[in-house]
């Protein structure tokens, strides 16, 4: 990797670690200071590495520079005397100004502490996702706005409100206790799942940004799954689900950013390594007594890694959706279940069941009906696809529906 590739890469992998360690060093009150020091560290890296070349151990270089900058900052700033000194001095015998601790152990503990701080119930769930991106992944308000198809001001305000709440409450950045983990883990997983979905399903055309969102979410889930405090079968299941989905990332968009549907995908472009890793995690997740929705969804995704249609495949997918919907209703799960029903029990039954779904404002609903009626009653199929077209907003989705309409008109 050359310098131009290396720094963005390190920004993705190290930003979170540096900010987490410094935030737990300074306390949540001073998170902006922590962020400033980290940004400054990366700025120094790009200046210095550009001139002197890449150091032998770039990561260690970043930690050392961040440490030095922290030292300089504390010396220069009276804040140290007034507010920080007693807290920092506490527990330290060696020095009055201990350096932030970049040991592997502390990096991991700090990251974990930060994830749980971001997912504090004080922060609304939509803000949690934005704050996680901002604080843990170093995404700016504009990048988040692009990913969410929102505008910068809205995101900026949302982030500020969330930050103020955490500061006002004086949230401690400390490894979560067992009861905090139990109470908040669902929330944490939901946030990370949303983060991933934002990347995977976002209608934003920026493929690189979307892939990064997915990778970030996977890194964070990986962190949780490998930590003895937080490891749970449901986390392995969630990571397995992400691996299966991510394995199709390349295959699901065409050269012009158009969506390529599952049936039309070239399965040689699926990432086998990710599928294998997902299978390993899914197997590892099959312990304990809790069957989470992530287990069910990961199993569904697993069956989708078999491209070949078979009665067994669709019967399994149908039953998994049946159980998933009993655990938690969602319109997408209802639509996907109905599609699986058509594959397992036939189109006639699926059409009957589809009509009972009260999803008349959803373009996916009309696309599903269009699909079900294709070859059964093509006039009706066309009507449904046209209705879907009226309701769809994004360009990529509209083009997909138009392709279906053209296909039908040529029959």
């Amino acid at each position: 990797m050359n310098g131009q590739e290396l720094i963005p890469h390190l920004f993705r992998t190290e930003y979170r670690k540096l900010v987490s360690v410094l935030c737990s060093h300074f306390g949540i009150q001073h998170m902006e200071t922590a962020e400033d020091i980290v940004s400054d560290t990366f700025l120094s890296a790009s200046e210095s590495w550009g001139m002197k070349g890449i150091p032998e151990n770039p990561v260690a270089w970043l930690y050392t520079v961040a440490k030095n900058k922290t030292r300089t900052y504390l010396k220069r700033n009276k804040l140290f005397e007034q507010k920080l000194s007693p807290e920092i001095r506490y527990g330290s015998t060696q020095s009055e100004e201990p350096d932030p601790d970049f040991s592997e152990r502390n990096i991991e503990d700090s990251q974990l502490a930060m994830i749980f701080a971001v997912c504090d119930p004080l922060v609304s769930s939509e803000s949690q996702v934005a704050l996680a991106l901002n604080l843990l992944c170093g995404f700016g308000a504009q990048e988040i706005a692009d990913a969410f198809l929102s505008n910068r001001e809205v995101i900026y305000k949302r982030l500020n409100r969330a930050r103020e709440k955490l500061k006002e409450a004086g949230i401690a950045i400390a490894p979560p206790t067992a009861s905090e983990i139990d109470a908040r883990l669902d929330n944490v997983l939901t946030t990370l799942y949303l983060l991933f979905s934002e990347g995977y399903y976002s209608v934003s055309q920026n493929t690189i940004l979307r892939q990064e969102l997915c990778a970030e979410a996977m890194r964070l889930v990986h962190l949780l799954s490998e930590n003895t405090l937080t490891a749970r079968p449901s986390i392995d299941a969630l990571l397995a689900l992400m691996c299966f989905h991510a394995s199709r990332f390349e295959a699901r968009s065409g050269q012009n950013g158009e969506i390529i549907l599952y049936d039309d995908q070239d399965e040689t472009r699926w990432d086998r390594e990710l599928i294998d890793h997902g299978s390993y995690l899914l197997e590892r997740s099959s312990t304990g007594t809790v069957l989470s929705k992530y287990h069910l969804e990961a199993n569904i995704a697993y069956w989708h890694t078999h491209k070949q249609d078979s009665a067994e495949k669709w019967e399994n997918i149908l039953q998994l959706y049946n159980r998933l919907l009993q655990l938690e209703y969602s319109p997408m799960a209802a639509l996907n279940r109905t599609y699986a029903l058509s594959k397992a029990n036939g189109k006639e039954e699926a059409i009957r069941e589809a009509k009972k779904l009260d999803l008349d404002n959803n373009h996916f609903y009309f696309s599903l009906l269009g699909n079900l009626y294709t070859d059964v009653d093509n006039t009706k199929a066309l009507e449904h696809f046209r209705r879907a077209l009226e309701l769809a907003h994004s360009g990529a989705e509209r083009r997909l529906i138009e392709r279906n309409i053209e296909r039908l008109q040529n029959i």
Partner: protein
Amino acid sequence: MKEFLLIFRRDIRKEAQPSPEQMQASVKHWQDWIGGIAAQNKLARQPQRWSADARVVRPDNLVTDGPYAEIKEAIGGLLFIKANDFEEAGEIAKGCPILQWGGNVEIRMAISPEEADH
């Protein structure tokens, strides 16, 4: 939307019992039926399975194993659903697999505390 309780009763006499193959198919029918209700977001509570085994307590602290000696029908299960009225709840109940085995579905509507006062 109101909450309704569906009570499934089935014939428990020996001659009415399904074969193992029929049982196998029946699991799928139940799952598909309940999955269909869930897909309409009309499950009021998560389904719960109940043992076929039962005890009956009678006056004088008399406890017996199930009501099976005296009756030919027993409760096979319960399901809590959401529906606008009895008519809609009835439409949903028509898909219940227990009907294929000569059983029946009793439908009760939940009464809110305010309604109970009147």
